[in-house]
């Protein structure tokens, strides 16, 4: 169990950098089809920002934003978005993840539909990767202690 560190400097710098790191990660996710990066890389940067928060400010403040339960739900939602978009293409009469078919549903040209479809899939991948990485981080840093034990102590 990580308690709040008494290191003033790392805490303050983490607090200042944290929102910018998250916005940068979202930028990497959203611009995945013009620049390097994409869902996986953006998700890893998101998880890294939560690791920084957990290491500097303790797990309590991190759990207020992302607890184990929420991480589990989000990872399922990410997979659901990915699979749902793929299956929607199947229903509309294309192959799996054949984004062009989404144009009928969204009332846009097939090229724009392809772009939007890739964006959706990348958001799904980023959510799943972030949630799984956060779960791994929590599992490693709370060796043998579940959050329920912690709450009963408080």
């Amino acid at each position, binding site marked *: 169990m990580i308690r709040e560190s008494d290191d*003033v*400097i790392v805490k*303050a710098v983490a*607090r200042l950098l944290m*929102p910018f790191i998250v*916005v*940068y990660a*979202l930028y990497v996710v*959203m611009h995945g089809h013009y620049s390097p990066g994409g869902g996986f890389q953006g998700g890893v940067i998101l998880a890294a920002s939560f690791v920084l928060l957990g290491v500097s400010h303790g797990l309590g403040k991190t759990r207020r934003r992302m607890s184990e339960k929420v991480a589990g739900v989000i990872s399922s939602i990410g997979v659901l978005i990915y699979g749902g978009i793929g299956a929607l293409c199947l229903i509309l009469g294309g192959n799996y993840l054949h984004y062009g078919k989404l144009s009928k549903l969204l009332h846009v040209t097939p090229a724009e539909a392809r772009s939007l479809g890739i964006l959706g899939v990348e958001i799904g991948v980023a959510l799943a990767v972030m949630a799984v990485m956060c779960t791994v981080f929590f599992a490693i840093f709370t060796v043998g202690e579940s959050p329920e034990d912690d709450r009963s102590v408080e």
Partner: protein
Amino acid sequence: MEVTLLLETTENAFRVLEQAREHATGLLDTAVQFTAEETRFREEKRGQILFTGAQRRRTQFQNFVGTTIILFAFWMLLSGKFDAFHLTLGAICCALVAYLFHDLLFANVRVGDMRVVAARFIAYIPWLIQQILLANIHVVSLVVRRRMPIDPRVVKFKTKLETDISCVTLANSITLTPGTITMDIKDGVFYVHAVSQKVADELNAGDMEDRVAHIFMEADHLYVEDVLDAARIYQTLRV
């Protein structure tokens, strides 16, 4: 007769003692109350006490809006695409992040003096860059000699800086100026590794701390506690 006198005297003495005890208890209560008041006041001054009700919500909302604006400027710097779709995407992302992290960016900020602090901070940067240039000349002059003229020591001094941002500014300035590195901060006491006695003396003059205190409008450099050798400081830390 004498016995009665003795009894009376004893009674009187007991009464006086009782009064004194009551008085002392009252004093003690007042002292405890005073201490609690002072602690509360200090915490309030550091912005750690939470506002209640409407004021708290208003502060949260202000923090949210400020964070969103700053993050949106950062998004536009990153993205470089100014069509409606990407700007909307950015606005949604920034609002989401600001909702999650609204209490991080503006914690411990005292309201009302932001502009002065920013102006003074910008005026501080040229001096800092000059110090960094000196520091690098110092490092070069250390490294290229065959026998390096170093005599490292650990210096300890107490600071009066209160907010964490001013502590960070001071510590990072110490790390970037010639021959010193901030090793640890423990309850406002800085432990600094200095590369020679001359550098340590320059640090103890407190010039930099006065500058940082001036930026953030806090108390000045108070006193130099001690210059100890590494072994003794290490022992104090371990105990």
